[in-house]
């Protein structure tokens, strides 16, 4: 099986696995216990906090361990809005193509009297700073913009957004789930107040994440019942997963340049060859983009059947079609960058990691055009497009 769905999750690295086993087999104390095994585990967590902080250029005390990206995002947004509400600030700014962890949390807040402005992301999938400047109001409590998009991989101007937010006195949260371990992050220099990340996107284990909250930002607990994580997240920490996460993040950051160079070369080859398929489009800006992300639409076919057919051919990929989302609408990300529904249904995301090989790319390059042609041959939409009874949306 060729695994090309690394934006969904990654294979756990040997380093993370070995680290985790040590904290399962040997150092199994409860970090809250006062005896030596407990204190050993607590010391390990502080070591992990230090490692994560170094990777983000943050202070270890500002690193909170959570169950993953969604929890971190929820806590970041609910904390910032609680702080804002105390000062009468009930306006929130985000973007149209955030992950649902952000958008659904904002929906909930909108139902509680907050006003939400979602910034356009345009055809290239990049937020415009002038739009942000205009959207900020005296009562804006929070700006939440993702570091890099999970579907199309476009990287946002985080440092500039951070600068604007700092100047205007607005808290800035970034969902860095896709970026951590893949792009340089500097919480200080980029003026990031709150940041969420998830371990399993950089070869760490599932079920562990980080919420970074700059000193002075008081977090609201989502889980009550204990003094863990400085009283902001009750529950005994998942020490093995946290240690595996720290080890994986350290490794990813150390090898970032080398990995990105390798992955980008494979990605560029896929893009070059797959764009030769007629009536297709690569979605999102190609320069400001995660090294491993390919996202394309093929007119006249539907994404779920494309992805199942590729799975049948031994390639694991993803699609933003309605059928894979469990709703009737195709990906909100693809609609946000202006694709018509019927085109957005035919999307394919291939997301690579350094574990992929150039030989696997050649197999993908063989398989995708064959499967697209097979499904088009079966498609009444393609038939109508070819006969001129329907107009092509993609040239």
């Amino acid at each position: 099986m060729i695994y090309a769905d690394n934006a969904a999750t990654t294979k756990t690295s040997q380093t993370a696995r070995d680290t985790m086993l040590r904290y399962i087999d040997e150092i199994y104390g409860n970090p809250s216990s006062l005896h030596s095994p407990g204190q050993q585990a607590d010391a390990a967590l502080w070591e992990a906090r230090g490692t994560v902080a170094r990777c983000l250029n943050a202070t270890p005390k500002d690193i909170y361990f959570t169950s993953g990206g969604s929890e971190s995002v929820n806590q970041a947004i609910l904390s910032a809005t609680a702080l804002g509400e105390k000062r009468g600030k009930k306006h929130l700014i985000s973007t149209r193509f955030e992950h649902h962890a952000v958008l659904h949390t904002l929906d909930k807040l909108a139902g509680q009297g907050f006003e939400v402005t979602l910034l356009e992301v345009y055809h290239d999938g990049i937020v415009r700073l002038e739009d942000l400047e205009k959207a900020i109001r005296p009562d804006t409590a929070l700006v939440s913009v993702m570091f890099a998009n999970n579907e199309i991989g476009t990287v946002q101007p985080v440092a500039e957004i951070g600068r604007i937010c700092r100047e205007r006195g607005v808290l800035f949260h970034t969902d860095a789930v896709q970026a951590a371990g893949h792009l340089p992050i500097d919480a200080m220099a980029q003026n990031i107040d709150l940041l969420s990340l998830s371990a399993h996107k950089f070869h760490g284990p599932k079920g562990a994440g980080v919420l970074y909250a700059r000193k002075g930002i008081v977090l609201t607990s989502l889980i009550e019942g204990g003094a863990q994580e400085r009283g902001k997240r009750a529950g005994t920490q998942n020490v093995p997963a946290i240690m595996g996460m720290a080890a994986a993040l350290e490794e990813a950051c150390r090898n970032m340049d080398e990995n990105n160079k390798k992955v980008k070369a494979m990605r560029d080859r896929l893009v070059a060859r797959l764009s030769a398929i007629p009536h297709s489009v690569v979605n999102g800006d190609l320069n400001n983009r995660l090294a491993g992300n390919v996202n394309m639409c093929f007119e006249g076919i539907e994404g779920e059947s494309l992805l199942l057919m590729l799975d049948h051919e031994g390639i694991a990929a993803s699609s933003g079609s309605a059928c894979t989302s469990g709703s009737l609408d195709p990906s909100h990300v693809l609609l946000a960058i202006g694709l018509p529904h019927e085109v957005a249904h035919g999307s394919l995301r291939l997301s690579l990691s350094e574990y992929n090989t150039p030989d696997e790319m050649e197999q993908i390059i063989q398989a995708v055009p064959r499967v697209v042609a097979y499904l088009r041959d079966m498609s009444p939409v393609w038939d109508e497009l070819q006969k001129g009874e329907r107009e092509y949306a993609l040239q």
Partner: protein
Amino acid sequence: MLYSDKVMDHFTHPRNVGKMEDADGIGEVGNAKCGDIMRMYIKVKDDIITDVKFNTFGCGSAIATSSMATEMIKGKPIAEALALTNKAVVEALDGLPGNKIHCSVLAEEAVKAAVKDYYDRHGIEYDSCVFGDCEHCPQCDGA
């Protein structure tokens, strides 16, 4: 697993897929905006559906339900094809996930639309209530 083995079999090896140049009736249902369109072609002789083909734009279950529906009506009298329910198609496929049931509805509607087109083309009178409204898929009306 999202789909049953039977669904995957019909998806990966669809029966009766293709176009039919000399069809006696063609039915098309669904729309591209919603992500699925089925087109069904039938050949009729002495009130028997002697051949059937389909073209489908849609997800795995849309392709599988089309394929199964064609198998269930091929060689059958028209009356039997008109009696085909989406429930029967779902059962024949050993079930579909809840959010895919509308694909089986489309398959039932495609069969009916093809028969209606056959009746219309050949000036055969029929009770229009049998066919209901096939102009759009109800699932998408709210979308």
